[in-house]
Every structure is written in C-alpha cells, then in structure tokens.
C-alpha cells in the first residue's frame, strides 16, 4: 500500500486558538479515510494547510514523497492534489460542462499565447476534455444538465458537480470537504458510488463528514480530531462506539 499524502508534525494556531496540533496523517492509494470530529476540531483547517491556502506554523506535507511546502495552491493541485469545498464554490456564470473543463490537469487556454497562436491545439484539448467531462457526468447521472448553468441546479446536484470537477484533473489525492452536507435522495447514492470508484482507481481519498452513516459505509479508516489534534484512529464502527469520543463529539 503506497503512501500518497504524508502530513508530518503539522501545527497551526490563530491567535492562540489551535487548529492543528502536531498532526501526523498518511493517506494511502486506494483507501478512503474519514476525518470526523465536532465543529471547530480543525478538519477543514487541515485541508487548508495541506492545500497551502493557510501557511502552517510548523510541519510539512509530502505528495508521493515530494515536499509541497514552498508551493502555491494551484501548483500543489497540478502536482496531484485535489479538493472540494464545503460550500461547493462552483463557477455560477458557467454551464456545468464548462465548470468541468476549467478543472483539467493542464488547460492550454489559460495562456494568451495559445489562444492567439494555437487554436488547433486548443480545439484538440477542448474536444478531449469535453469527452472526459461527459464521461464523468454520465457516471454521476447528470448528463442531461451538462449545458445548464450551475446556479440553476438544486444543491445536491451542485455538490456532485463539485466532486466531478475535482476529478477532472487526474488527482492522486482527493480531499472531500463535507460532500454529503445538503445532499439527499438519488444524489446520496451517486456520491457514495463515485467516491468508492475513485478510491478503487487508486486515488487516496480523505473525507471530512458529519454524516456518520456515510462515513461508516464508505471509509476504510476513521480519524477522530478534537481541538486540532488527532485523538483516535481505527475502524469507523469502533470510533463510534467509543464513549469518550462520543462525549467529545456531542459535548456534555
């Protein structure tokens, strides 16, 4: 089992509030890790630290053995990291398929030079990326909304599209921030299926989620965080049964 993402001794505090307290976490190819814990435990903050959105006070992140520390967010993404957002953050002025196109690993259209002098290359890229986008949309059962503006879609579908968009870039490690919040019905099943398929294809997945049944059904391992520190790790079912953790989760 190959280690894909390696978080070592990660620490961060904001004005004395500790969001990461010497966190060590390794994600492996093909495995889904569920990050659970009460609000404010530092789960999303850990994602932000890994992505470089927030600079750590101490600690290091390695992706396939290479240090990410000096890199900016977009550079980390290009080296194989991908994440979604709790509040989706799609591009509302773009249709679904165009939201996906932006997320391709390389996007030649982001260079003015290519736009002005390499239209043939852009066309080839566009066609290939569109095909890939349509495949992913078909997998999550949203082919029929490919040309709709994302702002016209119900929230559950937007969440799925957020995951679909994160899959466009051939990520080696996928961080999902509350993929199930606000998702119900058909989208719930689709989300579970997609995440499982992604993991089976060899991607290391980490899910922050409050929906415990989703975590239990999906994750190979659970990690319990509290006050920025990892309190326990192991099978999700065991974590749920632990009375100490339950008390931390629900308070007194």
């Amino acid at each position, binding site marked *: 089992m190959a280690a894909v993402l390696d978080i070592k001794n990660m620490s961060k505090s904001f004005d004395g509030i500790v969001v990461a307290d010497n966190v060590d976490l390794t994600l492996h190819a093909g495995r889904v890790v569920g990050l659970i814990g009460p609000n404010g435990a530092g789960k999303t903050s850990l994602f932000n630290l890994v992505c470089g959105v927030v600079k750590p006070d101490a600690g290091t992140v390695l992706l396939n053995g290479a240090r990410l520390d000096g890199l*900016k967010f*977009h550079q980390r*993404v290009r080296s194989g990291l991908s994440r979604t957002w709790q509040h989706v953050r799609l591009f509302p002025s773009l249709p679904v398929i165009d939201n996906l196109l932006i997320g391709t690993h390389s996007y030649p259209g982001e260079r*003015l030079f290519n*736009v002005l002098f390499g239209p043939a290359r852009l066309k080839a890229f566009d066609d290939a990326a569109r095909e890939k986008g349509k495949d992913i949309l078909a997998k999550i059962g949203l082919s029929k909304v490919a*040309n709709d*503006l994302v702002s016209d879609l119900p929230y559950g579908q937007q969440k799925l599209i957020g995951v679909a968009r994160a899959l466009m870039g051939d990520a080696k490690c996928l961080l999902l921030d509350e993929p199930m919040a606000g998702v119900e019905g058909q989208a719930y099943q689709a989300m579970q299926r997609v995440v499982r398929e992604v993991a089976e294809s060899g991607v290391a997945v980490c899910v922050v989620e409050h929906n415990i049944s989703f975590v239990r059904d999906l994750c190979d391992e659970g990690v319990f965080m509290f006050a920025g520190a990892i309190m326990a790790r192991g099978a999700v079912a065991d974590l749920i049964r632990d009375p100490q953790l339950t008390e931390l989760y629900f308070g007194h």
Partner: protein
Amino acid sequence: MEYLYSVIILVGLYVILATSFNLIIGYGGLVSIAHPVFFALGAYASAILSRDFHVPVLLAMLAGFFVALVASIALALPSLRVSGDYLMIASIGFQLGLLELIKNVRFTGGSGGFSNIPPFLIREFGRESYVLLVLAVMLAVILLVWWISRSDYGRAMSAMRDDELAFSSMGRDAMWMKIAIFALGSGIAGLAGGLYAHYFRFITPEQFEILQSAAILTMVVVGGMRTTWGPVIGALLLQALPQAISFLALPPSILGPIQGLLFTGLVLVFMFFRPQGLVPANDIWRAPSAKPAEPR
C-alpha cells in the same frame, strides 16, 4: 473636413481605450483607474523616441505599446501579489505620481507639453490614410477582445471572476492571468497613445488626468461591461456629447465642469436605472441549445 477627421480619430481612439479597459475591468474584474496613464506612456514614449531619437514612427508606436505593457506589469506584479484591492490603490498613486514626474522632468517637455511630434502617413498619403489606420487598429482591437472573451481564455476569466480560490483549486494560476490581462489591456492603451501623438502632434500631461479615467470608466459602464459593443457605443456617445456641447457657445469656464458633471451624472443615472449598461451582457457560456432551466 479636418475637424471631422479629428473627431473620427478621437472616437476611434476612445473606442480602443474603452475596449481595452473593458478587458481589464469587465472581463478581468481588475479595478484600476490608471488607464489614461498607459495611454500617456505610449504617447510620450512614441513621441520622444521618434522626435529626439529619430526612431521610425511605426517602430516608436510599437515601442509605446511595449513601454505601457512593461510599466503595467511593474504596477500589477507587486500589488496583485497582495490582493486585487491593492491594484486600485496602487493605480491611483501610479497615475498621480507619473503625471507629476512628466510635468517635472525636462525630456518630456514638462507641464508645457511635448510638441513638434513627427507626423505619420499624413504628408505622404493625406489625413484620410491616418483615419483608416486608426479605424483599422480599432477594428483589430475590438476583434481581439471579442476573440479572447469567447475563447478558452474567456472561460477561464469568467471562472476566475466568479471565485478566485476555487479557480486556484482547479490548478489555475489566477495571479499570472490577471497580470497578463492587465498588461495586454494597458499595452493596447499605449498603442492608442502613439496613434494620438503622431496625429495631434502635441501632448500635455493634463490630458491624461483623472477626468480621463472617469471618461473611460463611464464609457465602459454606460455602454455595458463585458460586452463587445458596449464600450464601442459608450465611447461613441461620450465622445459625441462633449463635441455637441461645445457647439452650444458656452464659455470655457463652464464647458469644462459640465463635461465632468456629464460623466459622473451619467454613471449615477445608469447605476439607478440601467446598471447593466446600454448593451446588457448575456451569458456567453450558455450553450445556444440549452433553454433556461425550469425551477426544480
């Protein structure tokens, strides 16, 4: 006829300025007021190079493009590293500072202005040829911005404007994209400056002051941001109006303030009654086949 040519050339140049500024503020979402300064940089660079260093006019104009482009990168690089808000603040300082510099150094002619700029085309082919040159450049700039806005680059600009953090999370480099947009738009303003200088053959620093910033901004906002024809119509309208007013035989002491009032007044009126401008932006990324989704 000469008057008519001057008006056409001015309108053409302002269409270029408004269209390039639309690229920056509309498509790029970058707020800057310094567009007239890049116009000035192009004009001065081209004028100085051709008059005092005997550089052929065409090359001097191209140099004006590059001087404005490089200066805009120098302005954007430090401020965009921090955040977009700093660009606006820095642009105000840049505009005030650079114009003050132009007024106070000798090789620009100081506040008295720079005169005897070598003419271009007019002696050999008549004024009509210059009109055609300006209109050709104007068309090329309109086409260029139209092409960019509908290309993969345009899609990326839309995404970046929508949500910069999400844009970065897709592996896209927002900072360099902004710098590229700002540099291209500013370079085009510099080219317009060169075109201005070699027709009117006299430039002064006060032509490029804050009233010009307001004028160009008004053209884009009133015409319609993020549209191809909005800035064109805005520039036509706002160049025609002052010309029309100047026929009213008002004393110059009233004429100047009236123009300023016109620009700010128009922005206020449009803000309340037609915020989308004369030409409303449509969803260019919505596929023509897709009907607006019904509420689900």
